[in-house]
Every structure is written in structure tokens, then in C-alpha cells.
């Protein structure tokens, strides 16, 4: 079958890209070949617009065992103990079909971790939605949370944290990111098809017509009025199959039966067959008649690009074939030999005895187009930055405080995380609701901390500063719980890269993230870029979600954010700049403003704070970083989490001091006897520390006003559940 002139456009390829394919093949591509190119050269799979920028990121460090380019980054967290850590996005599918979009996002990241030979042990779900006043947003929140809950709980991987941010710019482009932590149990696997003569075994669910074009027509284009019609491009998840797939693959790996392993996600069978061979310098002959299918009558191109879920491709020595099939049969999952590694560099696809595709594997996997797209700083950013946030005092400080506390961005996310199993594996030392989750690795004393942060508003006002702030906040969260920041993964969510201002935002985000990661010695181990988060020409705020991983020194104590004992001393560490209101929660909630410049970050000051938190770990009883909502919200959260009030002793805290979002700050407490040690540690680290009050009593006494803890609790705990519970009925 030959192709028609406009077909490539329907598949999402440009005229120029079509020409490149013709040149590379020296002939017209077949229909199947064109379909394979369309998914592998899609933005989602090829990173064609982002590659030139991504390579500027710092990716090496003493703890980094595997950096970007594999299924997940691998980081050594203790001598001889390695974990896998990776973030992904499932934004577009989740908007079209929230339950299955979010569920299959979980499934996809779990298989990424599995492909490295790691057992997935924890998930985090950073989510962004529009305003909860909008009925469709409430429907999306309910569907997405239910999808994550349904899938994550069934496969038995705890969801230990995440974020939920509500901002109008995400109304028609919700962000459903997901990060997964895994632990290497036996040996590291690689997605390589080494050794001609070895066989390729497709393991897992049957291939159907779901998810055709998920990577190309859905994830790599803007949304418009017809987006609903793209529902068939959303995959359907089956967590039961995924659970069996996890157990079967881990057994295959620990039994030493595999040469190579890769997951099937975006791009379907086209992806691992081309990538595994391209990396190994081999080729593969695939007979797709042997692909186990869900339905008859599928065209070869459908088999090659279907994104049916819960599938892995294993490369196996022929002598081990029966053992592999036996393990799969015992777990009750289908497995079939579909191909053979060959010594040429070509990917040959055979259907009913006929070659339907014959292309160089590297042409699909590595030699796709690379664009250094034009970029330009948009004029509107000067206008937005030149407006100053309103600083006039609110009529009632107490009232302003309660309004900020009840903002869905600040209020408790319990309604969401109580739907997630966050305890399975008996390793969740600190679960959702803290600064970072703390996970004890299975059958081990090794503890790691993970968190995600992505301040979209700051990045809208200044993408470079915003990205630096995102990394700094993530590192601060890790340090507050007692761990040392080690490495990041990320999910970079932006608009249409074919637009100059979006591309400029992207390049600034990369520059900011890179600078902060270099300064804080937390290399980038991989991640994901999600472009085309635009609907009807309106883009989201550039939103880099940073997933930070940290590890605990053997003697370090895990610290929570909640106040502990009556009489404990409250110390504010770090300097407050009262003008740091740009992009703040206070400005948004009280004045409906997102203007000015984001808070100013000095990475040396951030490093000093991190050093203080590590140095004073033994004296600190509780620690909480200051971020959205500033000091007022940090104190309230610490009191609510600890179930005990406080009384401030200082009377110079006005609305600016209370709600400024200056970075590099934390609220820590210590026993009265530990106060001198705290100040000594602060001096050693070179940070400003100020005693501001004591823990105790049933009220939150800010000096200028006070609030009963019980009243604040009903506001804080009720805000999200009230709007969401009323929505669904």
C-alpha cells in the first residue's frame, strides 16, 4: 500500500518531515512505515523541540549511576543500594478521559521503573486543575483522583504524596503528572537488544485498537473544540494485568532469564523494537502475526502503533525461551515470541508472510528531526512584571489569614490522599501532607525522601527565576524532613513549542533549572517534556514540576512539620523580604493579582539553610519550609499538624511579613534547652535565625490577631472536601 499526499499530515507529520523520511528510505514509505514514523517522530516520543535545550542540563554526579536516556534515572542512596526515580505526564489523555487517562499514567511510569529492573515502591501525583468553581473542573478532579486511586491501589504501590494546585490557566489543560520510585532488587536491566539470534518476547496484555495515535495526534497537538473526538486515542488500563506483569518481570529478572527489557508505552511496539536495537547496534525481524491480539482484523499499522497497556518486550537467549514462557504462564499472563534480533541495523516487520515495513532502526529511534525552534521573550512579560503587587494592609488581618488558609491551594488535600493507599509495603515513615514523603526501602534500614514542586505562577512571571525557585523549594522540602537532596527528575509542562514565546519560556526554564541544580549539586537524572498544553490558543503557565530525591544519613532523624511539645521554642530561619509578594498566594487570594516579579532567590542562602537543617538535625524537633502563604501559613500548618497552638512573642509581623514568600526560610522548633544549640548551628551555617514564639495552648496567637485552632482546622480541612463532595452529586 502506498501513501497519499496528505496522509502524513493526518498522522501529525509535517511536509518537511515526510520528505526526510522519503530521503532516508530512498523510496516512498509504506503505510505501516509512515504510521511508525509518525509516532516515533512525534514530539512526545522524540523530544524534537526540546533536545537541543535538554542537553545543557547537569546530569552527572557521584551518586548518579544512570542518567537521562533510559527508562528511569538510577541513583545510589546508600553504599550498594540503588533506586530508580522518574516522572511522566499524562496531561492530554486525562483531559479527554480523566479516569483512564490518569490511571494509565500511573501504569506507564510504573513500567518505566520496572524496565530498569526495579520494583516500584512509591508514587507521587502532582496535579494541576482550573478553579474549583467550575463544574467541569470538579468532574476532572474526581475522575483523575479516582483513576489514580483505582490503578495505584490495585497494583499495590503506595501513593505517598503529590500536589494539587488550582489555577484558571489549567482549566482546559489540567496537568496530570506522576512520579515513581523503585528499588533495584537484583540487577539493573537495560533496554538493549544485544546478541543477534536472541529472541524478542512480548509479555502482557493483548494488543487492541485502543490508544492508536496517543503519542502523535493526542499528546503532540493543541486542543480545540474537537478534542472530545479524540477519546479513542486514550488507552484503557487494567491494573490487575499490571500487577501480574510486575511480579512476572521481577521474577524473570531475578532468575537471570533476560538479556534486555523495555516497556511499551507511547508508540506501542514500534518503540521498544526500534529503541532497543538502535541502542545495541542491532536490528530485529518482527512477525506481527505472533502478537497476541484482543480483536481480529487489525491492520499491521494498528498493531505497530497501538498503545494498549500493560505490555513489556523482553530480549531472551533462545535457550531460555521455555523458562520465560513458563514463568509468564504461572503468573497467568500472555507471552509470545514475536521476533528475533538480527545483525543488520534494520527493523523488519512481517505480516502474513509479507514485509510491511523495513527501515533502519536508528532512523525511527534516534535520527528523528531535531528543531532549534525560534524563541523570543514576549512583550507582555515586561508589562506584567512592571505592575507591583498591592501592599496596602487588608481591612482585617484575621480575615485575610482565614481566606488564604481556605484557598484550595493551601487547604488540606486529605480528600484526595485518603483515596490513595499510601501505606502498603510498611515503609511509609511519612506520608502525604508533609514537606516530603519519607520511605524506608523494603527489608532495609535505608530511608529516602521524595517530593514534587512546581510553582507555575512564579514561572509565568519569570520562567528562569521560577524554575530556580522550584528546585530550591524541592531541596528545602527534602532537607526539612532530615534528608540530603541528591538528584531530580522533572516534568516540564508548557504550551505549543512552535510559538516563539513558549519556546523562550522553555529555554528559560531549562536555564533556571540547570543553574539551580548545579548550585545545589542535584543533577537531573531524566524526566519528561509535555508540550502543547494549549487549548484554543491559550497556553498554561510554564510549569516545571521538579521531583527531588534525597537520602538520609544513617544517624539522621526523620522530622515532621507538626509542632510537638508545649513550651518548645519556635525559630524562624532565613531572611524575609516584605516585598516578595509577586505570584504569592496572598496576592492571588486577597487582590486577585498575579503580577510583579517572583520572590528573589539567592542560591547561596538556600545552601546555607540546607546546611543548617542538616547540622541542627539532632536538636530540631519539627521543621517546615516556608512557601505558598508564607510564614502565616507555615505556622498554621505546623500547629494543625501537631494539634497544638502557639503564641508569637514578636509584634513587628504585619501582613507583608506574614505573607511574603521569600525563599530559603524554614520554621523550626526545639526544646527550650536546645535553643542555644540551634543558634550556634545557625551561626555555623551562616543563616539568620530569630526566636519568634513558643508552642502551646489551644489558639494560634499571631500577636496582631488570634484564631482558635479548632476553627482554623475546620476551615483548613473542610475547604476542598466541601467543594468536591457537593460537585459529584
Amino acid at each position, binding site marked *: 500500500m502506498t501513501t497519499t499526499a496528505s496522509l502524513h499530515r493526518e498522522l501529525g507529520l509535517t511536509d518537511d518531515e515526510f520528505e526526510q523520511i522519503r530521503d532516508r528510505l530512498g523510496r516512498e514509505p509504506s503505510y505501516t512505515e509512515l504510521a511508525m514514523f509518525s509516532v516515533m517522530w512525534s514530539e512526545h516520543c522524540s523530544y524534537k523541540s526540546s533536545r537541543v535545550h535538554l542537553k545543557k542540563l547537569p546530569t552527572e554526579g557521584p551518586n548518579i549511576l544512570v542518567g537521562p536516556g533510559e527508562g528511569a534515572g538510577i541513583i545510589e542512596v546508600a553504599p550498594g543500594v540503588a533506586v530508580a526515580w522518574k516522572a511522566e505526564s499524562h496531561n492530554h489523555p486525562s483531559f479527554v478521559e480523566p479516569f483512564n487517562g490518569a490511571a494509565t499514567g500511573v501504569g506507564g511510569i510504573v513500567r518505566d521503573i520496572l524496565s530498569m529492573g526495579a520494583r516500584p515502591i512509591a508514587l507521587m501525583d502532582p496535579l494541576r486543575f482550573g478553579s474549583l468553581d467550575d463544574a467541569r473542573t470538579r468532574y476532572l478532579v474526581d475522575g483523575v483522583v479516582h483513576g489514580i*486511586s*483505582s490503578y495505584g*491501589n*490495585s*497494583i*499495590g504501590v503506595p501513593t505517598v504524596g503529590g500536589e494539587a494546585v488550582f489555577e484558571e490557566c489549567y482549566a482546559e489543560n489540567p496537568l496530570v503528572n506522576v512520579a515513581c520510585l523503585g528499588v533495584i532488587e537484583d540487577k539493573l536491566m537495560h533496554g538493549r537488544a544485544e546478541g543477534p539470534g536472541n529472541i524478542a518476547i512480548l509479555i502482557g496484555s493483548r494488543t487492541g485498537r485502543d490508544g492508536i495515535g496517543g503519542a502523535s495526534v493526542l499528546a503532540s497537538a493543541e486542543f480545540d473544540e474537537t478534542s472530545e473526538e479524540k477519546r479513542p486515542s486514550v488507552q484503557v488500563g*487494567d*491494573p*490487575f494485568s499490571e*500487577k*501480574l506483569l510486575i511480579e512476572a518481570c521481577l521474577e524473570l529478572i531475578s532468575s537471570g532469564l533476560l538479556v534486555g527489557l523495555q516497556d511499551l508505552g507511547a508508540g506501542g511496539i514500534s518503540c521498544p523494537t526500534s529503541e532497543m536495537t538502535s541502542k545495541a547496534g542491532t536490528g530485529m525481524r518482527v512477525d506481527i502475526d505472533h502478537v497476541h491480539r484482543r480483536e481480529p482484523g487489525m491492520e499491521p499499522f494498528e498493531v505497530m502503533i497501538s498503545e494498549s497497556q500493560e505490555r513489556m518486550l523482553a530480549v531472551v537467549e533462545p535457550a531460555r525461551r521455555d523458562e520465560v514462557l513458563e514463568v509468564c504462564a504461572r*503468573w*497467568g499472563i500472555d507471552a509470545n515470541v514475536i521476533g528475533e534480533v538480527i545483525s543488520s541495523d534494520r527493523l523488519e516487520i512481517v505480516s502474513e508472510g509479507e514485509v510491511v515495513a523495513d527501515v533502519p532502526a536508528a532512523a525511527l529511534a534516534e535520527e528523528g528531526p531535531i528543531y532549534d525552534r525560534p524563541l523570543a521573550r514576549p512583550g507582555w512579560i515586561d508589562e506584567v512584571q512592571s505592575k507591583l503587587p498591592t501592599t496596602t494592609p487588608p481591612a482585617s488581618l484575621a480575615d485575610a489569614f482565614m481566606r488564604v488558609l481556605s484557598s484550595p491551594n493551601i487547604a488540606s488535600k486529605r480528600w484526595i*490522599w*485518603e*483515596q*490513595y*493507599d*499510601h*501505606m*502498603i*509495603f*510498611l515503609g*511509609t*515513615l511519612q506520608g502525604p501532607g508533609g514537606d516530603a514523603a519519607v520511605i524506608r526501602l*523494603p*527489608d532495609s534500614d535505608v530511608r529516602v525522601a521524595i517530593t514534587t514542586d512546581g510553582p507555575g505562577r512564579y514561572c509565568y512571571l519569570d520562567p528562569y527565576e521560577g524554575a530556580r525557585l522550584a528546585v530550591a523549594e524541592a531541596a528545602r522540602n527534602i532537607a526539612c524532613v532530615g534528608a540530603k537532596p541528591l538528584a531530580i527528575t522533572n516534568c516540564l509542562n508548557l504550551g505549543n513549542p512552535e510559538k516563539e514565546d513558549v519556546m523562550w519560556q522553555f529555554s528559560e526554564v531549562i536555564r533556571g533549572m540547570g543553574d539551580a541544580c548545579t548550585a545545589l549539586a542535584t543533577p537531573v537524572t531524566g524526566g519528561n517534556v509535555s508540550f502543547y498544553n494549549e487549548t484554543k490558543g491559550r497556553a498554561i503557565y510554564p510549569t516545571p514540576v521538579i521531583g527531588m530525591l534525597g537520602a538520609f544519613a544513617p544517624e539522621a532523624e526523620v522530622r515532621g512539620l507538626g509542632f510537638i511539645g508545649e513550651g518548645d521554642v519556635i525559630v524562624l530561619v532565613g531572611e524575609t523580604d516584605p516585598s516578595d509578594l509577586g505570584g504569592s498566594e496572598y496576592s492571588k487570594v486577597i487582590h486577585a493579582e498575579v503580577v510583579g516579579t517572583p520572590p528573589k532567590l539567592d542560591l547561596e542562602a538556600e545552601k546555607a539553610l540546607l546546611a543548617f537543617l542538616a547540622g541542627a538535625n539532632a536538636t530540631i524537633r519539627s521543621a517546615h519550609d516556608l512557601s505558598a502563604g508564607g510564614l502565616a501559613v507555615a505556622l498554621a500548618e505546623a500547629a494543625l499538624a501537631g494539634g497544638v497552638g502557639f503564641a508569637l512573642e514578636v509584634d513587628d509581623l504585619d501582613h507583608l511579613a506574614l505573607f511574603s514568600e521569600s525563599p530559603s526560610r524554614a520554621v523550626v522548633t526545639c526544646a527550650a534547652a536546645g535553643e542555644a544549640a540551634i543558634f550556634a548551628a545557625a551561626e555555623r551555617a551562616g543563616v539568620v535565625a530569630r526566636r519568634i514564639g513558643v508552642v502551646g495552648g489551644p489558639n494560634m496567637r499571631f500577636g496582631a490577631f488570634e484564631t482558635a485552632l479548632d476553627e482554623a482546622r475546620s476551615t483548613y480541612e473542610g475547604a476542598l472536601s466541601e467543594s468536591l463532595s457537593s460537585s459529584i452529586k
Partner: protein
Amino acid sequence: MSARVGIVVFPGSNCEQDCEKVFRDLGAEPMMVWHAEDALPDVDIVVLPGGFAHGDYLRTGALARFSPIMSAVQKHSDAGGLTIGICNGFQVLCEAGMLPGALRKNAGLKFLCKWVDLTVDNADTPFTSRAEPGRVIRIPINHFEGNWYCEPAVLDDLKANGQIVLRYADNPNGSLDSVAGLANENFTVFGLMPHPERACESILGSEDGALILGSMLDHLTAKAGV
């Protein structure tokens, strides 16, 4: 000699490793038993762990009751051996008719993973002997279908017979009479929605789960000593 604990693994079970770890920490000798076996190894206690046996398709526990191992579990129980079903395991026991009643979707129609307080209604059982009557214990729940129900007349009998063993202090899921855990007539089979294996270490939030699991081990020791 340490107690031998057989943990039944259905495809889709996911709390079997947690149960294995906790029973080992308590000094027992746990072993996994695949659902497709038609006989149990020589065990003193059978555990049906939490998870989503057979994907929980059709209805929770509805397919698992037909797994070959279940007739061996029934025989083990008939012979006086102890069996505990936790969460999904409780659902399987109800479906298999080894415990009365059925588990429906939570009243709030949401999955719930949270710490709950339970009162020990009957401390004179092989599953609660380490606690005293009326004691409040803290153990997490983790389920969508934990809303237990039975016919009112059946409930009267269960109460009269002391088979209602654990009740929620603050009913989270709509269970009839706040029932969280109950035993069969002979007190050899016990099912509960909360996860005692998740509450056996203070660093995880509570050690009260060991009261339940440890009571079973005590029972065996007492029996062996007689």
C-alpha cells in the same frame, strides 16, 4: 517451635509480603501458598491477605472463593485451625460462606485509606486475647468495599454469640452496627477490614495490630501447652 503461617497468594493479592514480614517479626514462620494449590502445607494459621484477588472483577472475592486452595482452607478450619482474612481476605471469606454477611461499597462511595479507632467488643477470642474488653486500638483501613451488612436476625445471633469482635469507634464506611471484624461460630475464622499488619511498629504509627496477630500465636502456644 514457632508457629507455621500459610499466606495464600491469589493473583492480584498485594499485602502478602507485608504479612510475611510482620509474622516473621513476631517470631512465626510464614510461608506463601499459591492459590492454585489444592492442599495446604503443614500450617497452624492460614492468612488470606489484602489486595485485589483476581482483580476483584465481578465482585470483591467472588472469583477467589473458587480458587482450588479454598477447599483446603475450609478443611483446615473444620479441623480447628485458625484462619484470618484481612480486608480482601475478609471479603473472600464472606463470599466463601466461611463468615456471615457481605461487604458493600463504602457509604461515601470513595476508597478510604486512613487510621481508625476500633473497640474490642470481645477479648475472649483467639484473635483478641492480648487486648482487654472495651480497649480502643488504632489500626488503618484501606478499602472501597468495607461496608459490612447482614440480615438483622443474623446480627442478633452474632451479637448474642459474641461473634462481633471489633467495631469502629467512628464508623467510616457505613457498616451495619459499625462492625469492623467478626468471627465464625467456632471462633476459628476471623475476618476484619482494618489491616493489623500495617500497625505493628511504632515508627509506622501504632503497634496495636500486633495485639491481633500476636493473640493468634498465643492461642497456639496455649493449645500446645495444654
